[in-house]
């Protein structure tokens, strides 16, 4: 990675920290503490399931909200505030700027996820003080998939941010996330249709990001194993999709007049 990308990424991370994005950790900490105390009192033998479900879902939702709402401003805010002018008048290529912004926000989300994951494990230890069990490694896989979701959504938000207003970018990115959550259902629907409808539904099913394939929270909560093949496939899928979205963002941004 070029040093310039690293500097832009680190500045993006610093912006997120100084703009108090990581304050969401406080809300998460309150949620997890409350959940851990509460489930210990009201549930019988399903404490672990509730804490994992609640914790991982919250990590995913908090992160998606950050990815969308920060991601949509990564380029457009810099154009509106004209901070981009002095950056691009340096020996910085436009693609380096996009890449730096992407890695900066991705880094923020990874740090956020690590802190939240520590909260989930702390809650698990609270309700089950003896030890963590072997099947809890599944939680790490679920967390890894959640990070892959963040990469996808960040890349999409950046893509939209490179050509449209923050409001429209937020709508597009959120809509794709919601549709992507039902991507498997969309594929099932495509298989049931015929003719032009089949082709259209299939195309739509493959264009939207398959967020549902990256959601293994329920399986992990029920201590079902995650196949190694799925990890490899999801990694390849999420990285390819993110790279394609980033390339789209770069292609658009390389041609854009900064009026």
């Amino acid at each position: 990675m070029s040093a310039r990308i690293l500097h832009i990424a680190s500045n993006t991370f610093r912006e997120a920290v100084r703009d108090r994005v990581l304050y969401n950790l406080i809300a998460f900490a309150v949620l997890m503490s409350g959940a851990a105390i509460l489930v210990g009192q009201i549930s019988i033998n399903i404490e672990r399931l509730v804490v994992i479900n609640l914790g991982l879902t919250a990590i995913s939702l908090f992160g998606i909200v950050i990815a969308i709402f920060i991601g949509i401003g990564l380029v457009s805010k810099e154009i509106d505030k004209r901070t981009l002018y002095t950056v691009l008048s340096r020996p910085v290529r436009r693609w380096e700027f996009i890449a730096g912004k992407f890695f900066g926000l991705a880094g923020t989300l990874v740090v956020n996820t690590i802190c939240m994951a520590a909260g989930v494990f702390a809650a698990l230890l609270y309700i089950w003080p003896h030890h963590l069990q072997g099947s809890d490694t599944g939680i790490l896989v679920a967390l890894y998939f959640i990070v892959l979701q963040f990469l996808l959504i960040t890349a999409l938000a950046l893509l939209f941010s490179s050509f449209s207003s923050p409001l429209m970018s937020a709508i597009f990115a959120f809509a794709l996330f919601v549709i992507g959550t039902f991507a498997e259902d969309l594929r099932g629907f495509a298989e049931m249709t015929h003719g032009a409808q089949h082709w259209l539904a299939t195309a739509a099913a493959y264009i939207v990001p398959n967020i549902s394939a990256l959601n293994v929270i329920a399986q992990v909560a029920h201590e079902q194993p995650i196949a190694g093949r799925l990890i490899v496939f999801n990694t390849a899928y999420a990285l390819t999709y993110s790279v394609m979205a980033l390339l789209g963002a770069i292609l658009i941004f390389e041609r854009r007049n900064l009026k």
Partner: protein
Amino acid sequence: MPAIEIEKLEKSYSVGFLRKTLKRALQPLSLVVEEGEIFGFLGPNGAGKTTTLKMLMGLVFPTAGTARILGKSIDDPEVKAQIGFLPEQPYFYDYLTARELLNYYGQLSGIPGKERPRKIESMLERVGLRDAANVQLRKFSKGMLQRVGIAQAILHDPKIVFLDEPMSGLDPMGRREVRDVMEELKRAGKTVFFSTHILSDAEALCDRVAILHLGELRGVGAVADLTSTVQGNVEIVWKGTTIFPAIKALNAVCYTTGDTVRAVLPEANQDAAIDAIRRERSRLVSVTPVRASLEDYFVEKVKRIEAGLGAKA
């Protein structure tokens, strides 16, 4: 080798939603700026100055034409290491302190890590921000932001500095400081290309100026050469309290102060006015040419253009 060579550079934007039409922001512009000069790019708001600067910085792509900086195409990333840029009404990352901002731009400009702290400290001192180095920019006044802007533009010791309206909105002290920095840069052999609509600043600083109006280049040259093309006036002072009708008839503006009369009239009428004073047997005190200012030149040019446009309409 010229510092900047602009050849038939032009820019049009498409406007409208359904029925798109082309709006020309800059007519084909050709210009050469030599190394080591302070070059003023003048014109009223909307003349095309910022569009030109943005094209030179690679922020906006030209519709046609080419530009070279230090002999290299403006698309060449190497060129960017040799230039500094201060945009109009700059806005910087306000969550950073002045020191952090300069460090960031220093990193992007490729200043080695070992040299950076020394350069930053000396630059903060130079622009008078040493005491505010650790204050976040969101707490800075407009003048302080302008100083940070200048500091980031010259931190990496560029050969050419582009400043877009650097004095705009500054108080007299702030303007003076910017002028001092520009003069220092010239003494250090740098080329300064700055846009302004404040003509007195350009007149005081520039070796040469270009005048842009409605996206078109209207004149380029040394200030003295341009102003010499404007019809000059002359000020004639004589003893007395009477304004002679013969002088008034020579298109003169007259004032009486104590026991002297002062008349300002076109240079061409000077001899006739002196003859008239002699005929009236008054004592001539002085005859002084009134030098045309850049503003006179500019106003005359704009008036001519507007008269031309009016005639066409």
